[in-house]
């Protein structure tokens, strides 16, 4: 694939978009698919859950709507509160996706904040990396633990920008910068983005990508927001690469010539 400022390389594979999207909270599968198409995302997250056992035969399957031949399916461990449950879930996911190694690890600490349980996250990451998984990991915006996850062998670290599903945006840009400046693997903001400007801010900070779900699914018009997010991630990346002008806190600087004014 030709190199583009908008492509993202994770674990040696290059993807066309730096925007990753979740597939939860949509009205139906048709809206899910249309929103994902509008977002331009290639990597899409899914959850792994018990199937119904016979009650609803012929129930549509998400992977028929989002075929693995067209999208990179990123199974997550959302809802897991222990390393053991997360590892078990991803083993099932790998079987489900026919050996696919890329996954999203998240081990939650409490159901109110959905903040990550970092000791369990680190433990699960060690096991998964040893078993050959390519782990993209949801984590606290803690530069030390983000580095530990990288050293374990995670292929991307994904700190929260604010709480999952909160839409509160980038609450601690300074910690994100510390993580980005120290990282040798891609850093993606995962969770907290509420609107397009939040995604742009994340990318301007130097993030390699953004993962979001609720900001699109719970917008009044999800397809329009998906399109806005695509542009925001691209605009933020371009602005980061362009390098912003220095801030001048106490002096203005006119953009027009100060000489040649009429009547002078």
């Amino acid at each position, binding site marked *: 694939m030709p190199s583009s400022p908008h492509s993202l390389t994770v674990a040696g594979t290059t993807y066309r978009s730096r925007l990753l999207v979740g*597939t939860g909270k949509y009205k139906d599968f048709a809206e899910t698919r249309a929103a994902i198409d509008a977002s331009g995302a290639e990597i899409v997250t899914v959850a792994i859950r018990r199937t119904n056992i016979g009650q609803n035969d012929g129930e549509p399957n998400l992977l028929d709507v989002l075929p693995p031949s067209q999208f990179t399916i990123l199974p997550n461990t959302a809802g897991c509160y222990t390393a053991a449950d997360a590892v078990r879930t991803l083993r099932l996911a790998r079987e489900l996706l026919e050996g696919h190694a890329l996954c999203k690890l998240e081990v939650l600490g409490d159901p109110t904040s959905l903040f990550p349980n970092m000791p369990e996250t680190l433990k699960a990451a060690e096991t998964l990396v040893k078993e050959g998984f390519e782990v993209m990991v949801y984590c606290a915006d803690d530069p030390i633990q983000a580095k530990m996850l990288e050293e374990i062998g995670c292929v991307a670290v994904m700190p929260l920008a604010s709480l999952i599903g909160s839409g509160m945006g980038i609450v601690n840009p300074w910690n994100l910068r510390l993580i980005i400046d120290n990282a040798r693997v891609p850093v993606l903001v995962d969770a907290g983005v509420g609107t397009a400007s939040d995604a742009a801010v994340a990318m301007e900070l130097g993030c390699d990508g953004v993962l979001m779900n609720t900001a699109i699914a719970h917008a009044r018009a999800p397809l329009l927001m998906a399109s806005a997010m695509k542009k925001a991630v691209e605009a933020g990346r371009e602005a980061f690469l362009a390098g912003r002008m220095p801030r001048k806190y106490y002096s203005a600087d006119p953009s027009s010539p100060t000489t040649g004014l009429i009547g002078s």
Partner: protein
Amino acid sequence: MELLINGESRQFSSPLTVAELVLTLNHAGKRIAVERNGEIVPRSRHGETMLADGDRVEIVVAVGGG
């Protein structure tokens, strides 16, 4: 024979394999993964894996999620 499938108890009159269970539940050919007593049963072994009384079976699918 009693199996605990996705946390629900089900009775079966005769022994069966994982493949036969999947067929009985109308999941044959669908995108599922099966775990038996905490261990993955690879798709290639569904046909030869006999289930035993008291086995705990999990059958999962991909669903929408972030």
